[in-house]
């Protein structure tokens, strides 16, 4: 108890002029948001459950992609038993199988009669027995149907029969089939792109939903935690409340975006290892749009999540003060799945739906670049407005501790 106290620093001494210049060794409040943001990030990164959750998700994504790559590149070789009389068709099956499905290979095993064939099947030495029953080809398996082999066999037998009948009629299989095929065509875009678009759009809508929900709840909880412990009173006397709000939004947005980029990155690397690798380039352009809209949409929603936290007085109340936010986030997600036609076009300009719908339309090729710019401008303006409104609600509800507040109460609460 003998430590001597240094003279207190001078910022508030009578002689200090009331300008923005700070005393040496002291920093101003203008960059305080960075301190707040850094704390939010550090706390989260040292939170074991957050780190474990992220790693597990990454492993799941990588594992799924890896399985896809392995499974799609795998060739299954089937042993098909056939008696001498059925051998020509079995040989044709062995020859043409690859042409029908490149993951299916067929080896033929000669058998003396039906009894021998059945014995092979039962012992598991053959996968199927190809034989004729009257005018019909039969593919007999032991206890479960081999769907790939069945599909290939059907195709090969159909083609063989067609050729035989064409030759009987004095014509060719090609002539017989002329004019019988239907090709699909889309006015806008192409089929493969549309399928890809809906897949990628779903993936991003889902990521946006998960990110806004998990980080939103995290943000609301970190706000109410400070409010409940009254540490917010110490913080509010140290820095402007706006700095606290901005720091929290920036910190949590950075975390959310970093996590999304990580997930999407691992997903893309995984995609490049699968037979769908050609899609990587097709997807990477729209991904940039998605990220831009993601950031703007996330910031707008994050400000509202902070308000949801500030309206509660205790952690247990967050669930009810955050209900409108949960509904909104779910509406955005399901809207992106089910909306179509004019509703989709209109809502692709309306925040926060535009955060997911506009990049989806870009990906589908149904929106022009200038439409994206307009939607982005509207979204950014809304985000700015929401942050301002949220600041007022946040500031006024932050220091009210008598139970839950409604938005209306918070708006008109005295400071």
């Amino acid at each position: 108890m003998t430590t001597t106290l240094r003279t207190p620093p001078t910022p508030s001494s009578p002689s200090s002029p009331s300008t923005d210049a700070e005393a040496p060794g002291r920093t101003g409040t203008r960059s305080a948001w960075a301190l707040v943001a850094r704390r939010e990030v550090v706390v989260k990164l040292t939170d074991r459950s957050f780190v474990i959750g992220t790693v597990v998700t990454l492993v799941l994504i990588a594992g799924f992609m890896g399985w896809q790559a392995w499974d799609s590149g795998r060739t299954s070789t089937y042993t098909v038993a056939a008696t001498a009389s059925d051998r020509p068709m079995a040989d044709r099956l062995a020859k043409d199988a690859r042409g029908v499905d490149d993951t299916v290979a067929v080896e033929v095993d000669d058998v003396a009669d039906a009894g021998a064939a059945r014995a092979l099947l039962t012992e598991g030495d053959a996968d199927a027995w190809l034989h004729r029953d009257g005018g019909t080809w039969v593919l007999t398996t032991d206890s479960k149907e081999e769907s790939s082999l069945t599909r290939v066999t059907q195709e090969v037998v159909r083609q063989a029969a067609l050729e035989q009948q064409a030759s009987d009629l004095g014509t060719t299989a090609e002539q017989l089939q002329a004019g019988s095929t239907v090709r699909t065509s889309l006015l806008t875009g192409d089929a493969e792109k549309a399928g890809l678009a809906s897949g990628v759009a779903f993936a991003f809508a889902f990521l946006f939903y998960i990110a806004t929900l998990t980080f939103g709840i995290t943000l609301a909880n970190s706000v109410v935690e400070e409010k409940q412990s009254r540490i917010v009173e110490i913080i509010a006397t140290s820095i402007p409340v706006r700095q606290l709000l901005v720091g929290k939004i920036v910190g949590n947005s950075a975390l959310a975006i970093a996590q999304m980029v990580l997930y999407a990155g691992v997903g893309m690397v995984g995609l490049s290892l699968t037979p769908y690798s050609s899609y990587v380039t097709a997807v990477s352009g729209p991904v940039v749009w998605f990220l831009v809209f993601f950031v703007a949409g996330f910031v707008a929603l994050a400000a509202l999540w902070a308000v949801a936290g500030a309206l509660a007085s205790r952690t247990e109340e967050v669930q009810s003060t955050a209900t409108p936010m949960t509904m909104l986030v779910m509406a955005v997600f399901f809207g992106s799945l089910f909306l179509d036609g004019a509703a989709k076009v209109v809502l692709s300009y309306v925040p926060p739906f535009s955060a997911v719908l506009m990049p989806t339309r870009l990906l589908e090729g149904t929106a022009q670049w200038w439409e994206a710019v307009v939607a982005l401008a509207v979204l950014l303006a809304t985000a700015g407005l929401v942050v301002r409104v949220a600041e007022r609600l946040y500031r006024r509800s932050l220091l009210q501790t008598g139970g839950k507040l409604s938005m209306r109460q918070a708006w008109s609460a005295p400071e």
Partner: protein
Amino acid sequence: MLEITDLTRRFGDVTAVDGVSFDVRGGLLTGFVGGNGAGKTTTMRMVMGVLGIDGGAVHWNGRPVTPRDQRGFGYMPEERGLYPKQRVIDQLVYLAQLKGMTAAAARAAAEEHLERFGLAERATARLQELSLGNQQRVQVVAALLHRPSALVLDEPFSGLDPTAVDSMADLLREHASTGVPVLFSSHQLDLVEKLCDRLVILSRGRVVAVGDADELRSRGPVRFRVTLDRDAGWVREVRGIHVVDVDGPSALVEVLEEGAEQAVLREAAERGTVREFTPVRPALADIYREVAA
């Protein structure tokens, strides 16, 4: 100097703080005393700027207080709370940085203060792993770390053991001795009496007494104890006094008319040997009960 002038705050129909005026002078420890709901916390929150002011003003060194001034103050809110899951040293550094200290200076100051409170080896523990008393000490350190230009502490002694009370008192005296105004509230009147240079007594939102302990005591009733070698029942006959208590040869009397105690003394000397004749200083608790009643 911190001047509080006519400060008023209403919550709905209730006036929690009603025209409160007092000052907290540099270099002095000012104790803020009052029952539950007297308005101490509300007043302190208005001084710190975390609660809006309905009327009146707070001045710092002669001009209206600004958020910049308040940033330099050290504040300990009524309900304790830091971040339960964060490490002690980390949150102290963070809070000091918010106050404008550089990270290095904040860390050095935090280590020095933790050392002082015997918490050096708990610096990297999470706050929730500490005992409640030690959490309280960390809270105190958080308020003092940035060498505040003024201290506003709401019940800084509650929850501290006697050793911690002593080191806390030393710390407050040290800060005051550097010229810093210190305002703290407390329920522990004996402590306030021992420690404070000045007292502000609040009751139902109003200041009922301000002054140093002696000044306040002098406002209380003047009492004398007289002890004889025989029964003192006769004091009941003396005019100008009120007999508080008679117990065999000893009596406690309250002087109603100036000089009446001299009559008691003369009479006592005439009747026999006077063993004791002393003025009785009222305890601060008595004064408090009287003014706050």
